[in-house]
């Protein structure tokens, strides 16, 4: 059985019940999907915009659809999946609110990975340098970045509240460690398990 060193994958795997139907939005090379199929016997499908990544997904024997996240969800009927995953793509989605609500329509539960733009290192850069932060985890210069949405773990929690989205579980991590102490200051990523009636 293959094993992933990535803690975010491990958290997501722990969130997901065996034999579930899973849609991974922005599935990349399909590494997470492959783990879900192998370890959790899930029925998985992915959506990915990068053509080269599609080949790598197919090489893993995955079912994958070439397209963008925004248009990919409309094809599916309500609650068609047990889980919809948006792990590393959230900050690159322009109409994020619409996509998350759509994901909650087609999925009974939604798992999102939230990059924390308010990690203390970033905050220091803003405070002392007076510049938009560039960190190891968020390495892009402001003028050349795939990210179009900048938010923190706390912002995301507020977003859920405003949109009546239930947070069923959440974990925060920094590098390879779980963070429970002031995650909005010390975590790089928050992973949320969401649902909506």
């Amino acid at each position: 059985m293959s094993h992933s060193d990535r803690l975010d994958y491990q958290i997501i795997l722990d969130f997901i019940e065996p034999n579930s139907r899973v849609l991974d939005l922005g599935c990349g090379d399909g590494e997470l999907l492959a783990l879900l199929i192998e370890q959790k016997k899930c029925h998985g499908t992915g959506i990915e915009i990068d053509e080269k990544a599609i080949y790598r997904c197919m090489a893993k024997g995955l079912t994958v659809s070439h397209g963008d996240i925004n248009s990919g969800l409309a094809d599916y009927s309500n609650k068609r999946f047990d889980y919809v995953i948006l792990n590393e793509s959230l900050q690159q989605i322009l109409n994020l609110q619409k996509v998350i609500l759509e994901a909650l329509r087609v999925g009974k539960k939604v798992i999102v990975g939230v990059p924390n733009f308010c990690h203390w290192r970033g905050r220091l850069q803003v405070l002392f340098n007076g510049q938009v932060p560039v960190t190891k985890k968020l390495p892009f210069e402001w003028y050349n970045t795939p990210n179009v949405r900048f938010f923190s773990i706390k912002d995301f929690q507020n977003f859920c509240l405003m949109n009546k989205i239930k947070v069923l579980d959440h974990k925060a991590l920094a590098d390879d460690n779980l963070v429970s102490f002031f995650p909005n200051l010390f975590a790089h990523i928050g992973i949320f398990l969401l649902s909506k009636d």
Partner: protein
Amino acid sequence: MGKNSVGIVKTQYFECCESPQELKLKGGQRLGPITVAYETYGNLNNQKSNAILIFHALSGDAHAAGWHEEAKNPGWWDGMIGPGKAFDTNKYFVICANVLGSCKGSTGPASINPKTGKPYGLSFPVVTIEDMVEVQKLLIDHLGIKKLLSTAGGSMGGLLALKWSVLYPETTASVITIATNHRHTAQQIALHEVCRQAIMSDPDWQGGDYYGKSIPARGLALSRMIGHITYMSEKSMDDKFGRKLIGKEKVGYDFTQDFEVENYLKYRGDSFVQRFDANSYLYLTKTLDYFDLAEEGALVSTFRNVTANFLVISFSSDWLYPSYQSTELVRALKANDIDVSNIEINTNYGHDSFLVEIEGQSKLISHFLTRLEKKHL
């Protein structure tokens, strides 16, 4: 001939639909007897579970792979079919049959009508994609195959693969469609109509009754020239020819050929006349234009009984069967909970990509088939 070639192959012939069991066509007429030209590559396993049926495009034939004795070129999809290739003949039994209405060995307008002893010409009934599928189903039954591992086709071949999946959903585990769509659009019909008018306005066409006389060579060549423009992209044409002149230093300011692209089209047109029957071209373009998978309702409900896994491939520069048409197909499949993978391959070769862009397609298809093989073999 490389070591990954299926080697020397021979076309075989299957006879069916003899009186009184003529094929009942969608248009209401009955047709028989029918000859089906086909080729097979690789070996059928004992369970007869490793067969893949390949459907060819408009002007294609049963000779998909390998070499005919003393031929200069291999079959039309030789890059895809053979030992170690996408359709790996070490593992799969690959079948390709010439469609009904063609002129490459199967019964069509150039065939002799047994009732009159003369070629059918325009007395041949117009056949549909459905009729073509029915005939190939008889062939598959004849070969003793109950369930195909896959059906695959590009362009017109894709239409057959789609129709098969809907008509006989239980008989194929998977479907691979390439550069195709679920219904012919107004532009596709319009282009075909220009091709047909080119043939029919040639005085040598003689109402389709030209067999044994002079053939409508100019009309058919012109028709093919038009076709060829639609198979390429603006970019691939410009890359290949640009404004290069043919055998001259400067343009002639007359109506002789100046540009290489003119010469190329003429060559393509003229060589097509040597290998294809004008009436078949008329009939097959009609067959395509009549195709509408959703003619009895919404496309989504058309697929309600389909269980096969799908791989849908399209090409970014294909303007004859543009990618968005494949996307429509994918959406309808997804709405039916059908397992579908799809990709738009970024390439400049236009509609011809399905014949030319071998590397990407090979990877996708071999991975897709490997997954199915684990489930079904």
